[in-house]
């Protein structure tokens, strides 16, 4: 959260100055932004503080995000409908549209609960880029487990390891837990308040897990822990302005 946000804030401040033609108002706005971002990064250190900041952000974004969530949910559900239906006449597409609106109205707060939509495209690109890495990881883990099972001595050393994660939201916890389970040799047993309990088959697998490479990868894809969006800082700036 630390460096990324400051660099982004400075960049954005220059942008505001350029757009506002260096006027008094633009200068004020840029100063506010930089002030808030510096305050925001220096004041949020622990996980609980980060979660408090997240609540603050969520309340600031709620009215704006509700409609956006609804529309995005609608499009995802409609795409899923077309995939299922495979009929492209007006009658079935209209039915699909009505059904998607209905379900999106019922579930608009389920699919995108506490996900920031700031730069959806970046996240999608990173997700696609991370795919081959995960495949490679799963492949090598497969080979290792096959070696363990086939060698006559069977040199396994089962153990349960626990570690605290730096990820912050439930969806990233579940993403990490499921990628750990998907990799042969390790299974996530439980998550308690951000603490993972993982069963590992032998020492090498446990060591690989403890390096935290997979966690870093997930944090990179979901843009958490070390990243915060400039939009968040702008929201906080408006809250600070209202409080003043």
């Amino acid at each position, binding site marked *: 959260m630390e460096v990324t946000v400051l660099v982004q804030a400075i960049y954005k401040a220059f942008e505001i100055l350029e757009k506002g033609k260096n006027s008094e108002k633009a200068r004020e706005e840029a100063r506010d932004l930089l002030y808030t971002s510096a305050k925001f990064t220096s004041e949020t250190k622990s996980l609980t503080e980060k979660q408090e900041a997240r609540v603050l952000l969520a309340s600031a974004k709620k009215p704006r995000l509700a409609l956006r969530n609804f529309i995005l949910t609608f499009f995802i559900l409609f795409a899923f409908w077309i995939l299922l239906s495979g009929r492209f006449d007006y009658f079935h597409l209209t039915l699909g549209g009505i059904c998607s609106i209905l379900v999106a109205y019922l579930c608009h707060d389920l699919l995108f609960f506490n996900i920031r939509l700031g730069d959806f495209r970046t996240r999608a690109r990173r997700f696609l880029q991370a795919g081959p890495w995960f495949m490679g990881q799963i492949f090598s883990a497969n080979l290792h487990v096959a070696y363990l099972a086939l060698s006559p001595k069977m040199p396994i050393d089962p153990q349960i390891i626990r570690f605290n994660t730096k990820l912050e939201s439930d*969806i990233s916890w579940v993403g990490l837990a499921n990628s750990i389970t998907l990799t042969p040799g390790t299974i996530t047993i439980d998550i308690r308040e951000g603490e993972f309990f993982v069963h590992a088959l032998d020492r090498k697998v446990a060591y690989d897990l403890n390096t935290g490479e997979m966690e870093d990868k997930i944090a990179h894809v979901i843009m958490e822990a070390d990243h915060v969006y400039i939009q968040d800082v702008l929201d906080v700036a408006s809250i600070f302005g209202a409080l003043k």
Partner: protein
Amino acid sequence: MINISDDIITRTVSRVLVPFIQIYALYVIMHGHHSPGGGFQGGVILGASFILYLITHGLEDAKKRMSELKMGLFSTFGLLIYSGIGLLCLILGGNYLDYGRLSTILKVIPAQARSLGILGVEIGVGITVMAVMFSIFFDISTGGVLPEDEEGLGTSDE
């Protein structure tokens, strides 16, 4: 009484899955006259999605989304659609659920009127089945204690 699940994986995965289960259920209902499926099957899937939500997010949260009153209304509303279409055919001079007669109102050929009539009946069946499935599960999970009973127990002097 079912409380919110303390397993974060179950909770999150079900939260993401519920919208897709619901759209799949509606797909099964709407394509019942073209492909396998229909009102009952789709209604059961739709009811199962609400039940999944209830199991993972607890009774209180599920009540906010779908109350017992709403479910009761839905179950009768679905039945109304079904019997309404049936009686409409009867009024137009055919047998009960003789969809071909609907062509005079819908201004289409009888074959298409049959297709649309079946679709309407299936929507009615789906709504009813969904509501009844959910309310049965609701009754089991509350142990048959209605909200007004609870209030009465809380305020009585005995």
